[in-house]
């Protein structure tokens, strides 16, 4: 077994076990904290895929901001007190069948696809390349993102703030 395979399987285990805990934990704080290994595992996969910049952003935004925000809201609402309430609805068997079937379907279909061969040699995926891509072909998407963030920020503050 080479290093890449070892790393991949370790990270995959982290992602799957962590993800399982996220959806399965009775305790919501545990579920939220389990997001950390899951998201870190995904960040590790990005390292294996030579996507350094995406890794950094994954750590910064997903682990650093989104998880913290989720944890915060759980602690502010029912996280500390809601432990006696059942956390799952009565759809468990149905959901198990639906998502299980979907995963099997995805496997069955995706593993048979003759995925296109790499078009060329691997270029250096440094932050510069991603930056140029963001600011040249995808500049419109990039600029629109800033508007989206502005709209969300303003709206979320109005909604979340306590009225005097």
């Amino acid at each position, binding site marked *: 077994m080479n*290093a890449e395979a070892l790393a991949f399987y370790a990270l995959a285990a982290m992602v799957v076990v962590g993800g399982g805990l996220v959806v399965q934990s009775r305790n919501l*704080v545990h579920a939220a904290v389990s997001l950390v290994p899951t998201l870190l595992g995904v960040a590790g996969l990005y390292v294996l895929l030579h996507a350094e910049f995406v890794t950094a952003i994954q750590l910064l935004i997903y682990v*650093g901001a989104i998880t*913290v925000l989720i944890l915060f809201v759980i602690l502010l609402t029912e996280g*500390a007190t809601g432990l006696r309430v059942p956390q799952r609805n009565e759809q468990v068997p149905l959901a198990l069948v639906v998502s299980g079937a979907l995963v099997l379907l995805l496997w069955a279909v995706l593993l048979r696809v003759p995925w296109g061969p790499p078009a060329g040699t691997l270029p250096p995926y440094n932050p510069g390349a991603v930056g140029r891509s963001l600011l040249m072909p995808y500049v419109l998407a990039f600029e629109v993102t800033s508007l989206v963030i502005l709209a969300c920020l303003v709206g979320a503050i109005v909604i979340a703030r306590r009225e005097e």
Partner: protein
Amino acid sequence: MGVGGLLAAVWQVEIVRMVVLAAVVFTFLAVGGPLFLVLAERKISAWIQARVGPKHVGPHGLLQTVADTLKLLYKENILPHRADVVLFSVAPILVAVAALLDWVVIPFAPGWVVRDLNVGVLYFAAVSSLTVIGILAGGWASNNKYSLLGALRSAAQMVSYELPLGFSLILVATITGTLSTVRIVEAQPYPAYLYPSVVVAAVVFLIAATAEANRIPFDLPEAEAELVAGYFSEYTPMRFALFQLGEYGSLLASSALFTTLFLGGWKGPFQIPGVGPVVDGLVWFLLKTYAVVFFLMWVRWTYPRLRIDQLLGLSWKVLLPVSMVNLLVAGLLVVVR
């Protein structure tokens, strides 16, 4: 494949190597560092308050921290009533590990860096946010409302100060055109026409880093009078020591990063005669880093604590707008030149 083979394979995994090397650095610098820092802090505070400070254990009290640590190790480990065992144990480790991971991207001397990441500066910002999760988890797991309140305050504070900190980092990246810490050091000194911007960014960074490390005047999370000891009030010796380790570790790491970004890192004003470039770089780097640490301690023992609303207001209403305008100005200057 035997155990040896497996170990060899594990060693080939870059992440593993990174973490192990960072741990080695951390042990030498940060674990040695906090032992020394705690003593230094007590001595400096004593000096500021015209006291003597610890002096009986070892010559001039040099071994005081060692004795304290041994005492901590001997103490009983208490688990609070109905605490969440898993999270209670994991939280301090998370905080300590986050402080450890910071050291991956700090360059000590030419060529002496655990890993020169392409995205080093971003990495630093990202890893330090792991601490927040550790603190929130620890505060909640203690099953104590003071701990929880302390943790929430701490998280709010760290998240608010991450933004101005990030803007300072981006400013440096804009000027140097790179996110790699090594190349940032190499790019210094910065061109003179950018000095005003750099100074503003440095000041913002210093304030934000102090707040990130939860130190006075930003140490609200553990405001002793209001919240007992904050998020770690329920923590007993070993785990408490891990939290302390994380706190001092991140103080040291922030100082080291400040040195890297704004004080020229390993570059000294002159070459120390008779030593190689590595020793020279190391000496200058440590000298500057500890000077920053000293400055922060000085501040801690001089200024009173801010109130929570003042604290968050300072970040959102002062530091953030200032650093945004600053970034805009610097960006324009870079483009125009």
